[in-house]
C-alpha cells in the first residue's frame, strides 16, 4: 500500500479550497472597492459573514458529524469569540474618540481620567461608570486575541470535562449544552455582568486604526480574512479527521464502549475535539461580529445553536464540505427570504409572503431532509459518484428488533 500525500488522498479538500479561492477572487473583482461594483458592500459583508458561519458549521460537524455529540451550545463559543474581540474594538475606538474630545481640555487627562471617561462612555447606557474587572485587558489587542480563543476554549474544556467525566451522552448531553448557552445568555443579559446587558457591544464595524479605510474596502478585507481562516481551519479539520485520530473519533461516535475496551481514553478524545471545535467557532465569531457591527446576548439564544445544527444536517453531516454547503446555502436562502427580497407567491385566494412563510418551509423541509435524505445535500455528490453504500448504522439485532440497542447488548 503506497501512501499518497494527504491532499491527494482527500481530493475534496482540494476542490473546496479551489472553489473558495475562485469565489473570493470573483467577489473581489465584483466589489465596489476593487472591481466593477456589481456586488454592493452590504452584500460583500453578507458573504463574508456567511463564510464565518460556514466555519462554525465545519466545527459543528467535527463535534457532531465525526464525534457524535449533538452540541446545542456551539453559538455560545461563537458569540464569546465575538464578545472578546468586541471588547477591544469598542474600547479602542471609544478611547480614540474620548481622547480626541479631551484634547481640548486645558489640562491634559491622566491615564486614569481617560479610562474613567471611556468607561462612562461605554457603560453609561447600563448606568455604570466604572470599568468592570472583565475589561481589564480590553485596551490590548494582543490580550483580547488570546482571550478570544482561550475563554471559549477554557469554557469548553471545563464543561466538557464535567460532562464527559460523568458519561453524560446522547440527548442528555444535548440538553446540557443547551442549558450552558442559555445560562451564558441570561448572564450576559444582566446589566451588571459587565457586557452592557441587552445593549450588547456595538459599533464593531469601525476598526480602530483603520478609520480612514472606507467600509467598502474593509468589507473586502474581511472577506479575505474570513476566506483565509476558513481555508486554514478546513485544512486543519480535514487533517484531523483523515488519519488514525479521525478513525478513533468516528469509532467513538459509532460505539463508544468498544473504543474504551480498545484502550483509548474516550473522554480525552472528546475533550480535545470539543475544545478545538469551540476555539475554531470562537475565531469564526470573532471574524463575524466586526462584519455584523453589533453583538448582543440574543445571539446566544439556544435557538441559534439549533439552527447551526440544522444547517449541518441539511448540508450533510460527517462530511466537512457538507457542513459548509449547508451553512452557506441555508443561511443565504434564509436571509434572502426573510429579508423581504423574495417575490411573494400569488396563489388563488391567498398571497404567500415569504417573510411569514419561510420559517414554516424551512422547518418542514428540515423534517423532510431528516426523514428522507439523512446525508443531506452532500448526499447528492455520492449519488452522482455512484457511491451509495448500504446504511449500516443503527443496526438491528435480529429477532429482538427495536428491543435493545447495541450498547445494551454488551451490558
Amino acid at each position: 500500500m503506497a501512501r499518497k500525500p494527504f491532499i491527494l488522498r482527500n481530493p475534496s479538500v482540494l476542490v473546496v479550497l479551489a472553489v473558495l479561492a475562485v469565489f473570493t477572487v470573483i467577489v473581489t473583482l465584483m466589489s465596489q472597492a476593487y472591481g466593477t461594483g456589481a456586488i454592493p458592500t452590504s452584500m460583500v459583508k453578507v458573504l463574508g459573514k456567511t463564510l464565518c458561519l460556514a466555519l462554525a458549521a465545519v466545527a459543528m460537524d467535527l463535534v457532531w458529524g465525526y464525534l457524535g455529540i449533538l452540541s446545542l451550545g456551539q453559538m455560545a463559543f461563537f458569540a464569546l469569540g465575538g464578545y472578546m474581540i468586541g471588547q477591544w474594538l469598542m474600547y479602542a475606538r471609544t478611547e480614540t474618540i474620548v481622547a480626541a474630545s479631551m484634547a481640548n481640555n486645558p489640562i491634559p487627562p491622566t491615564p486614569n481620567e481617560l479610562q474613567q471617561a471611556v468607561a462612562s462612555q461605554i457603560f453609561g447606557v447600563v448606568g455604570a461608570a466604572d470599568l468592570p474587572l472583565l475589561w481589564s485587558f480590553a485596551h490590548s489587542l494582543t490580550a483580547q486575541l488570546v482571550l478570544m480563543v482561550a475563554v471559549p476554549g477554557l469554557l469548553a474544556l471545563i464543561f466538557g470535562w464535567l460532562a464527559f467525566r460523568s458519561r453524560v451522552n446522547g440527548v442528555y448531553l444535548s440538553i446540557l449544552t443547551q442549558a450552558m448557552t442559555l445560562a451564558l445568555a441570561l448572564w450576559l443579559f444582566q446589566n451588571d455582568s459587565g457586557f452592557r446587558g441587552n445593549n450588547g457591544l456595538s459599533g464593531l464595524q469601525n476598526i480602530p486604526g483603520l478609520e480612514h479605510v472606507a467600509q467598502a474596502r474593509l468589507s473586502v478585507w474581511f472577506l479575505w480574512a474570513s476566506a483565509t481562516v476558513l481555508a486554514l481551519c478546513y485544512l486543519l479539520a480535514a487533517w484531523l479527521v483523515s488519519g488514525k485520530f479521525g478513525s478513533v473519533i468516528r469509532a467513538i461516535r459509532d460505539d463508544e464502549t468498544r473504543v474504551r475496551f480498545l484502550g483509548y481514553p474516550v473522554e480525552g478524545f472528546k475533550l480535545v475535539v470539543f475544545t478545538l471545535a469551540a476555539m475554531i467557532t470562537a475565531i469564526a465569531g470573532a471574524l463575524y461580529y466586526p462584519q455584523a457591527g453589533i453583538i448582543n446576548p440574543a445571539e446566544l439564544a439556544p435557538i441559534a445553536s439549533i439552527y447551526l445544527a440544522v444547517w449541518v444536517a441539511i448540508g450533510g453531516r460527517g462530511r466537512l464540505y457538507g457542513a459548509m454547503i449547508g451553512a452557506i446555502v441555508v443561511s443565504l436562502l434564509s436571509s434572502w427570504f426573510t429579508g423581504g427580497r423574495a417575490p411573494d407567491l400569488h396563489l388563488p385566494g391567498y398571497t404567500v409572503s415569504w417573510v411569514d412563510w419561510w420559517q414554516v418551509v424551512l422547518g418542514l423541509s428540515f423534517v423532510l431532509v431528516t426523514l428522507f435524505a439523512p446525508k443531506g445535500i452532500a448526499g447528492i455528490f455520492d449519488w452522482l459518484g455512484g457511491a451509495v453504500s448500504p446504511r449500516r448504522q443503527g443496526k438491528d439485532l435480529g429477532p429482538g428488533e427495536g428491543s435493545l440497542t447495541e450498547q445494551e447488548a454488551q451490558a
Partner: protein
Amino acid sequence: MTRPHALLRHLPALIFVLALLATALPATANTALEQIVTNNLEQIQRPSRRTVQPLIAQIAATGPEGLAFLSAWANRNLGLTDDGQLLITSGKTTTDAITGQVVTGAEPKMLRPNSGVRGLIESALVAGEIASPDMARRAAALDSMARSSSAEHLVALRDAPPETDPALAARRARLEKLLTIRFDDDSAARIAAIQDMSGDVGLDFRAALNPLLATHRIVATSAPADQNIARELTPGRDDFSRDTAYDILKSEGVAQARLTPTAQRDTLAAHLQDGAVAGVPVAELSTTVGRDRAYEALEAAGTVSPAATDAEADDAIDAHRYFDVYNEPDSDVTDAARAAQRAAETRLMAMKGVDLGLDALSLASIYFLAAIGLAITFGVMRVINMAHGEFIMMGAYTAYVVQTMIPDRTGSLIIALPAAFIVTFLAGVLLERLVIRHLAKRPLETLLATFGVSIALQQLAKNIFGTQARPLTAPKWLEGAITINDVISISTIRVAIFALALLFLGLFLFIMKKTRLGLEVRAVTQNPGMAASMGINPDRIAMMTFGLGSGIAGIAGVAIGLFAQVTSELGQNYIVQSFMTVVVGGVGNIWGTLAGAGLIGILSKVIESFNPSNTLAAQTFMILFIVIFIQFRPRGIIPQKGRAAEV
C-alpha cells in the same frame, strides 16, 4: 400620611355620604348652628389652624346640619356671598348653609381653608362618625383613621362610646393601640401597647414601629448624654467607611474638604498661565505626579489655600465619635419597639418561608404539568420532542379560540380543557405517525426533526394569530387571591393549577397502574422486544403514549395561558425548564418528574428570594446548579433501573 389633604383624598365615600345627607335634609333652620356661624363669620372666612379647633367642635356639636356644614367647608364647597350669606354648592345646585333652602342666582365667593384647617375639620368629622349609630359608617370611620392617623383620632377614639359590634370592637381596640404607640404622650402607655402587640406581623403594626426606630447620624467628640443613642459607629467597620465618616465631618463643617482629583484639575486649569501651571508645563500635567507637583507649587506660592491632607483627614476622623441616634427621645419606648420589631421580624421570616414554599409549590406544579408529557414520551420512546413547547402553545391558543366563541368564562374553560387535549392529542399522534416512527432508534435525529416541526408550528401560529399577545381571561371565581395575612397569600389561579397538577398525577398513576394501556406501556418501556412478542403492538403503544403526552401538554398550555400572555413563544419559554425537570428528575418515572419539578420550583424560588430584583441571575444560577447536579446524578434523582436504563 398624616397630612390632612391626603386624608381628604381618602375620604370621598364619607364626604359623599355627608353630601347626600345634606341635600336630603328638610329645609328647617338649625338655630344653634345659625348662631355660632353668625358669631364667628370672621373666623370662618379666615380660619387659623391654631385657633379654629373650638369653633369646629361647636359646629360639630350642632347635629347633622353642622356636620354637613363642616364637610362642605373642608371640601371647599362653602361660599360666602357679599351680603354675608353662607352657601353650599353641590354640583349645580346651591343651598343655604344654615337653612338648607335652595338659592338661585347667588354668586358666592368660595372659601378656601388651608390644609391644616381642613385636617382639623376632617378629624372632627371622623370623630363624629365614630359615634354614629350606623355600623357601616362607624366601620368607614375606622378605615379612614387607619389610613391616615393623627393624634386627634386617638382622642376621638378614646372619647367615643363603647363599640357594640364585636368585630368592630376588635378593630377599634387594635387601632387604638396603634394610635397609642404613635401619638400617646405617656411613655408607659406606649410601651404597654407595644408589648401588647409584640410579635404581630401586620403591616400597620410594623408601620407604626418604624417611625419610633428611625435614626439620624450625629457626630460628637464625646457621647451625648441627652440623646437616645441607638448605636455607636466605628469608622472603617459595620458598613461605615472612613470616607462616609469624613463626609459627615465635612457636612458638619468640622473638617475641610479633601482635594479630589476633579477639584485639583479644575484648580490647576484656573491657574493656567502661558502653557504652564506654577512653572510646571502643561504636557507634564497628564500624570498624577505632575499634577501634585504643580499643586504643591501653587500652595507654596500661597495662590491656593492648602487642602486637607490624608493625615489630617485621618486625625479628624479619629478625633470624633459617631452615633446613630433615635428620633424618639425615650429609650424605654425604643427598646420596647426594637424588641417588638425583632419578634415581628422573626415571625415574618417564618411566614415568608411559608409564602415562599407556596410560591415554589405553584411553580413546581406548572413545571410538572409542562414536563409530564415530555417525561412520558421520553421515558417510553427515548424521544426528546422539541415540539413539546409548541403543543403547550397549541393548547393555549385552542383555549383562546374557544373563548372567542363562548363568552361565558367558566363555560369556555370547561370546554377548552378537553378541546385542548383533543387538539394536541391529535397533533401528537400525527407527529408520531408521520415523523417520529420513521426515526426510531435515532434519538438525536428525532430531536432535530421535531425541532423543525417546532419552528414551523411557531411561525404558523404567528401567521394565524399575529405576533401580539392574546388574552386568555380566567373566570371570575379564579381571579383574586387567597390571603391568609399580610405576608402569606397565593393567587387562586395558582391553587387551581396545583389542583390540576395533582389531578393529572392521579390520573397518570391510574392509567399506568390500573388500565390495560398502562400495563402495555410499562411493558414496552421495560423491554419492547419482549412486549412485542407477547402480542403488544409497540407502534400502537408509542402512538398512544405520544398522543397522551402531547394532550397533557395541551392542558398545561391552557393552565399557563390563564396567567401568562398567549403568544407564539409561549411554549418556547417553558421548554427548557421542562427539559431540565425531566433531566433532573430522571426519566421513565412519574415520581422522578415530580421530584424534578419540585426541586427546580423550590430552587428557583429560593435563589430568587436572595435577590428578588434580578430574576435573570436566579435563572443563571439555576441552570448552573443543574449542570453540576447532573455531574453527581447523571441519571436524575430517581434513576430508571435495569436494562432499559442503559440509553
